[in-house]
């Protein structure tokens, strides 16, 4: 059943120009970013005295910065991907179709999350060219590349769960998108708040709640249980809220 629901969402994405525009824009912008990072890296090396050149790490300067930029692009792209998932159904009153059927709320939420993840995955697929370039340069760290992509996908799942919830509380796509943008920015700001706080415990709590610290650890190739628990519970909590928000409409 999940497959049927997922397939319908995917077909809906690719029957409108939105998916193609997003994929096109994403590959264009991420391409420009990657190119610029490469250029500034080589410029940096050339500007350095011979002996110091190897101190500029390719991983630090290009790979990590690139994925951090991808994360930044998600601030705009993911709300655009999730905004219509429930808003459109609320506006067109098509959710009745599901309420009349034996489908459960969680099945709808899960299938829509998977569909959005699939679209994000196809966005990232284009960036698969860059690891090939990196490979060519001689950086052959499969583990690092693996965790980097994992980090980006984990962040994407969290943003999608948040975006889906925003979409489920408004029949207006624009409002849903704006709410998700604000939500994602808030997640980033919590970490900054942690940095600014002088109380150690409060700062630690803020850092844990904020998404950035987990993302950075993953990017550096560290996958700890606390990060798995963080992302897992984040997605579960927001999916649960979405189910509840749908249930409120239903009964």
């Amino acid at each position, binding site marked *: *059943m999940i497959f*049927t629901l997922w397939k*319908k969402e995917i*077909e*809906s994405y690719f*029957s*409108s120009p939105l998916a193609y525009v997003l994929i096109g824009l994403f590959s264009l912008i991420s391409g420009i970013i990657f190119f610029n990072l490469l250029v500034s890296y080589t410029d940096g090396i050339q500007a350095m005295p011979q002996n110091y050149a190897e101190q500029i790490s390719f991983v630090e300067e290009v790979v990590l910065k690139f994925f951090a930029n991808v994360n930044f692009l998600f601030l705009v792209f993911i709300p655009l991907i999730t905004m219509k998932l429930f808003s459109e159904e609320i506006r*067109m*009153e*098509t*959710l*009745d*179709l*599901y*309420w*009349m*059927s*034996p*489908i459960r709320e969680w099945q709808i939420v899960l299938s829509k999350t998977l569909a959005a993840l699939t679209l994000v995955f196809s966005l990232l697929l284009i960036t698969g060219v860059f690891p090939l370039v990196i490979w060519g340069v001689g950086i052959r760290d499969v583990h690092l590349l693996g965790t980097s992509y994992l980090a980006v996908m984990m962040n994407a799942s969290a943003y999608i769960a948040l975006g889906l919830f925003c979409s489920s509380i408004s029949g207006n796509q624009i409002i849903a998108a704006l709410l998700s943008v604000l939500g994602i920015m808030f997640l980033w700001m919590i970490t900054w708040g942690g940095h600014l706080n002088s109380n150690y415990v409060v700062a630690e709590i803020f850092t844990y709640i904020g998404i950035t610290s987990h993302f950075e650890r993953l990017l550096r190739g560290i996958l700890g249980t606390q990060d798995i628990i963080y992302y897992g519970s984040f997605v579960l909590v927001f999916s649960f809220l979405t189910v509840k928000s749908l*249930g409120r409409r*239903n*009964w």
Partner: protein
Amino acid sequence: MDKILVVDGVTKEYPGRVAVKEASFQVTKGSIHGFLGPNGAGKSTTMKMIAGILPTTSGEIRLFGQKVLPENRELKNQLGLLPENPPLYEDMKVEKYLQYVAKLHGVKNTKEQVEKVMEELSLADVRGRLIGNLSKGYKQRVGLAQAIVYDAPFLILDEPTNGLDPQTVVELRDFIKKLSADKTILFSSHVLSEVEQLCDHITIIHKGKIRASGNLQDIHRKFRQGLVLKLGIGVGQKLPDLMSFGKYEINHHSTLSMEEQFLINFESETDIRSELGKFILDRGLNLMTLHIESPELEDIFLHMTETKK
């Protein structure tokens, strides 16, 4: 007789507004039950509560003997709903959409079932078209197809013919009539002639309250107060005083080419046609028309919805 649907004292309150107040009525198996009321009377709200997609504030709805609750998933495949705004995905093609709905309801032979429904509703020609590009009539057909594609024994149709062209209206009406052979249908409308043609049972709702419910004939009988006669006498002739037949009231008078026609409401229900005929002829008047007027559903409807304001 089997009661498929029992609505028992159902109330629906929104903040600051009561949409439906203690509504009670029953729908008998195999009937087409007309649900009548002016716009905003609470028809759609009641229908959505019966379908289990809108919570009741109080009261109970039982369908096939089971309480209607969102978690009661057994009922989901037994009930088809065509809401006021059909739940259509405008970016889907007709055939795909119907197959999708069938799959949601776990229909095994999806392809054949969809094919059959498209054939019945003359949708085969538009199977490959996007729903968003269809005319209103076709959208309504797809909406109806969606409600019957999983072969539910009970159908709720909310104003299925509203705003459609006359030909489509006739076709849909015939189709609904055909459906009633093996299904029970609750059907709302504010077109009275349609309800009279299709339904054997009706429920009238106004301002959230049920005004009348039951067999169409019984309701007719109940609302015929006294005796209404249509009496025609020769052109230019004057109607004599009829007080000898008891209290009466002339509801309507019109001058036609051949006669003066009166619609007279007598307080007593006794059939006085033969005496009245003799009375007219004895006074040297021409008797052109004399028959009992049974009240139209429209009269009942207007009576229910106006006088009780």
